[in-house]
């Protein structure tokens, strides 16, 4: 079980039609590590994240999540796609938080959080409700359970979305620009929840433009450009003293 919460990628390649968006990506993320991925838009950073929980499939390369080949099983000659049930099982161990929240608008905040445990894991409703209640409180939204997503602010919706992912008890949480769609004044409340989560030892991969968050919370940092990992290493080290000229140019623009 020592591999729980780890992500390992070797030479991942991914193309959309003629456009290659991931070019030989290598990753190594340890259990409990907080890794931020930064880079210009179109650099492939969101695609990396989407591959890690199977929203996209990689074309070639090795991808192990929680120590298992993700979405495929390996034989002597090829990787064979797993049946949907197996893939779903692997996915439940990886939480995903989207830029546009993607809460289910037909369910209340409470029902959104319960949806995974009840509809996927077949958990007892009472037990799931109790857990949902705790999770809502833990993201600072106690008492908002009966609100529909449309009645919540962006920051509140994103916190519910984080709680919904956490309800599945994943070993890894992926964040795809979680604060990019928020009003500037709501960014802080979502980052605060994420910082709390980081303290608890959750493996987190965060695609973000929040350099302050990266500096404060991240253990490692990856800078991507044009489908390549240009630079990776200690977060504060790269942010203060980037080695690659391309990284330096990017950081000068955003800092």
């Amino acid at each position, binding site marked *: 079980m020592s591999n729980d919460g780890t992500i390992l990628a070797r030479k991942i390649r991914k193309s959309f039609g003629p456009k290659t968006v991931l070019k030989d990506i290598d990753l190594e993320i340890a259990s409990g590590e907080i890794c931020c991925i930064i880079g210009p838009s179109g650099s492939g950073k969101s695609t990396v994240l989407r591959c890690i929980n199977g929203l996209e499939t990689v074309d070639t390369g090795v991808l192990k999540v929680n120590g298992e080949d993700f979405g495929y099983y390996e034989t002597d000659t090829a990787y064979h796609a797993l049946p949907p049930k197996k893939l779903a099982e692997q996915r439940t161990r990886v939480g995903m938080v989207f830029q546009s929240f993607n809460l289910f*608008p037909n369910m209340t905040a409470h029902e959104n959080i319960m949806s995974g445990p009840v509809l996927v894991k077949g958990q007892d409703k009472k037990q799931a409700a109790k857990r949902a209640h705790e999770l809502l409180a833990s993201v600072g939204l106690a008492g908002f359970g009966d609100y529909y997503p449309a009645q919540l602010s962006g920051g509140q919706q994103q916190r519910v979305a984080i709680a919904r992912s956490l309800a599945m008890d994943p070993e890894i949480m992926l964040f795809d620009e979680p604060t990019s769609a928020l009003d500037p004044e709501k960014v802080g409340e979502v980052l605060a929840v994420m910082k709390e989560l980081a303290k608890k030892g959750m493996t987190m991969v965060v695609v973000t433009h929040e350099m302050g968050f990266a500096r404060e919370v991240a253990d490692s940092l990856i800078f991507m450009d044009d489908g390549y990992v240009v630079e990776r290493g200690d977060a504060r080290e790269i942010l203060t003293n980037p080695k690659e000229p391309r990284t330096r140019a990017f950081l000068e623009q955003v800092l």
Partner: protein
Amino acid sequence: MGSIDAALKPRLRLRTRSEYAGWVFSILVGIGILTSVLTNPNFKWGVVAQYFTHESILRGLMLTIFLTVASMALGTLLGLGLAIMRSSKVKPVSIAANIYITLFRGTPVLVQLIFWFNISALYPDLFIGIPFTDIGTAIDMNALMAPITAALVGLTLNEAAYMAEIIRGGFSSVGKGQIEAADSLGMSAGTRMRKVIIPQAMPSIIPATGNQVIGMFKGTSLVSVLGVAELLQSAQLIYARTYETIPLLLVASLWYLVMTLLLSYPQSKLEQKYSRATSRLPRKAKKVVALTEPEEGNLR
């Protein structure tokens, strides 16, 4: 000028000459038609009143309602299946659904109805059993395709094609992000369909389905050509005897009109209800509970 404070004076709308002309024209035409309808003795309003609640007319109305309900229900079920097939990633499956929809939407319902009525010319016996073996029984198609069966089959199969398109439209109105969210939670395709896609597709499916029900109600009059004694055929059977063609057509028309109006009301209510679906107010009674003690969420 005057004693009223200028700031309080009402601001009056401009009335153009064409507005007055419109009033005069509409009223004159209205009065003209109404006088004609009421004074022309050939309308025979007495006969209309006499047959309006005639037993065979009411029986025809019941059959019309039955045909509407049955073929809508079956057509919607079949349409749901076709819509799911149509959005399938397996190409032959989606192409098969597409061909079905194209065929049934591309040919007149009237032709389809007559076709099903005469299907025995194509397949004299319907064989029920295991394909490519002799196990099973053959049923005489002529006996099976009684007029009412043909009517039901024809209306259902045609309706399914339209419902498939409506349902598929509803599916595609659900954002890609919703599907990704469901997938990332590890939901199975079936759960995703039932709990995420269908509930969200309803707001666009329900009003369109209401329109289909109203259309179907009037569309059932086509099966009169098969000799099914629904509303129109019932009226026709009477005027074939009494030669009171117009009054009996009026009887049928009035019933169609009444039923359409009755259906329009719930239809507009449904439309209102579903247009609010995404901005529903919090369930107040429950919220009070929620703030004081752990609520028990009920997942619908």
